[in-house]
């Protein structure tokens, strides 16, 4: 079987080095691994440590021996925070990192690793604290409605109205429906402009539609108009209750929290004393 690359780039040219050298290294790597297992089983911790060090060295040598072609310069057009902003603006609601990555890939041919987003919120907070409102927008937290603490794993945009950045009990569902609508609308915008969305954009929409009653039939590809109608119908059920929750909490946040906390959330202590 011919090995084929899984990220779409060709494999052939990568293996250019002397196979003899590679073989020897691979053999050594295999030997080291089994020695490590044997040493582990025997409880010889010192040996394990030194073997591990040698293993890492050998693995590096193997990587070098492969001499991989540098990845084709797919330099991102935008810095990460701007790619995130772009995706969030499309979605219009606080969103988890995984979804941001997916939307960015499906609509903007962007490339962000989830790991690049882990420290993003902290960096933005640092920047805001040192010079508030120096940037046109910040990527900030969504706040839980009850304690006004940062909601886990969600990113939002500082310029959004406060209620949009509040997460009440119904908000996860309402926001999911909103983002499905926004994605469908964007696809229609693209097709309306004579372009078409990527297959992965349709796949994303279809996957989301499968979890919205009446949004898609069976295993078919989702139709944006049908998704908008179905998501709208369910959203109408939650909207009032969700909005009143969010508005109330937003008023509380604006009253009780300072500027930094309005954007990045209150700790437990603040919320309690508040």
């Amino acid at each position, binding site marked *: 079987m011919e090995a084929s690359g899984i990220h779409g780039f060709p494999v052939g040219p990568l293996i250019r080095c002397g196979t003899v050298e590679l073989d020897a290294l691979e053999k050594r790597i*295999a030997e080291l691994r089994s020695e490590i297992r044997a040493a582990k089983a025997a409880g010889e911790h010192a040996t394990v440590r030194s073997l591990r060090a040698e293993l890492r060295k050998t693995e590096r040598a*193997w990587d070098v021996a492969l001499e991989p072609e540098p990845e084709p310069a797919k330099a991102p057009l935008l810095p990460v925070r701007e790619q995130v902003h772009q995706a969030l603006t499309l979605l219009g609601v606080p969103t988890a990192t995984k979804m941001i990555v997916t939307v960015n890939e499906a609509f903007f041919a962007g490339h962000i690793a989830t790991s690049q987003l882990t420290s993003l919120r902290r960096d933005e907070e640092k920047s805001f604290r040192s010079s508030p409102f120096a940037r046109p927008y910040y990527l900030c937290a969504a706040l839980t409605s009850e304690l006004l603490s940062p909601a886990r794993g969600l990113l939002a945009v500082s310029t959004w109205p406060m209620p949009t950045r509040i997460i009440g009990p119904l908000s996860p569902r309402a926001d999911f429906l909103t983002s499905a609508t926004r994605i469908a609308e964007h696809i229609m915008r693209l097709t309306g402009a004579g372009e078409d969305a990527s297959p992965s954009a349709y796949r994303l929409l279809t996957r989301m539609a499968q979890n919205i009653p009446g949004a898609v039939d069976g295993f078919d590809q989702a139709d944006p108009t049908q998704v908008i109608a179905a998501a709208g119908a369910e959203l109408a059920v939650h909207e009032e209750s969700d909005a009143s929750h969010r508005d109330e909490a937003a008023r509380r946040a604006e009253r009780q929290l300072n500027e930094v906390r309005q954007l990045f959330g209150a700790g437990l202590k603040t919320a309690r004393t508040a």
Partner: protein
Amino acid sequence: MSIMSSYARALAVQNGRAQPVATVRHLHLSATPMVFIPLKLAGEAAAPLAALVGTDPANPRLLVVPQPRNRDLRFAFMAELAEVLLPYIEGLAGVTETVEAKTPYERCADAPQLLVPNRGGIAFTKLLGRSTRFRRTDGPYPVHPSVPVLGQWLTFLSERAEYAGSSALVSMTDALALHWATGQSSMEDANLATQLAWIAPPEGLDGPEAALVAEDPLTSPPAGPETHPDFDGQVLEYAIQAFETSGSAAQVREALRSQLEPTWTLMWQGVRLLRELPEAATVEARWARDRDQFTRETARLAEGGFPRGRVDGAVSAAIRLADLESALQAYEAQRAFDDPLVMIEHRVAGKAFSGEVVAVDATRRIVPAGKTRAAPRPLVTIRTSDPVRLSPGRRLVSSRNRKQRTEIVDITGDLVVIQVNDQMGRGATPAPGSVPEVGDVVCYAELDPSGGQRPRLPAGEDTPWTHGGPPEPYVPTDEDAQEAWS
């Protein structure tokens, strides 16, 4: 399990070596069995990881999926497996013989035999069949044309494996356990390495010592389909990463080869051990059934037969149950009549007895129930030291004529009187040799090698209301074919 096999296990502990529980081989062993050792990725339902496969002990073929989470690579693996298995299977379908029956018919002279290490291997073969037989070669997720065909055959083989006495798809540990009792528990016998260590320990070691060595996953990696978690964490994970970064499958291949090769050696050791046993009398007849079914499946597929549905309908389930029961009943009986060591199980349980004929009333004639005329019904008295737990009226079969029907008339002390009911010729007195004679040593058992009759059942389209009415006929759907395989 019985007191006999438990005794044999105890004996194995004392002798430091497995003890026989059969004197003959009760399964067919092909001249060229296909040994198939599949591995799967932990945590996934049916993600193939690797397989070592082939009919030549010296020349196994290693197939791997360098990134098991990639569906394209998985299907490439299945296509490669098809490259090995389909020529083997289809090649055997080519040679046929004419079976002399009421209506003579053609039957394949040989049939495929797949040997896997354990029951997990059979279950995984079934899953591989289930996950590939519905695939299409066109549409949204096309696969290589050989993949759905392979799926159909793997399904056929794993369904055959449900029938007692079939040798189409055999688990090696089960095959060995049928012939040897080790000094470990039957649960531990599911480990091919330790089981073989008890049966044939290497020079210088006794069974328990060898079994302890064989438990070390470094010397004897698991026979699959699961891999050892330490191997996954310490070796495989890195090898897959190396493939991801480099595109070279070499590390994955080497890693998996190291896990598969020891089992490959064990599989062929098992084959050799089984081959040393003489084949039991009825093995050929049971293998003929496997060949019959293989012939039918070949014809069905040649006519473009649909892949088998996901589940049985009410009628086909009932028919299959009757067939499974009949196959099991026949197999148990045949095995006992073929092998005195197996018959012990039934003698100990009081369902069979062995002894010497001490009296024969060959001229006895009575009017049987429901009949009007007298017919020969000789009585044979047997003295036995076995603990007979049968009562008058029970129907018995003897090892000397498995078709002759007899029944118990009386049991007093160590004397059992049986009446012979048929197979005595047409004359007024029994034909010579049709009834045992005084001094013969005979064995009678309440076992029926004929397997009993299947009740008449309605056709599937006539399924009655009690069982949900006629089911929708099965036609493969797009949904079956597109079922994402991620």
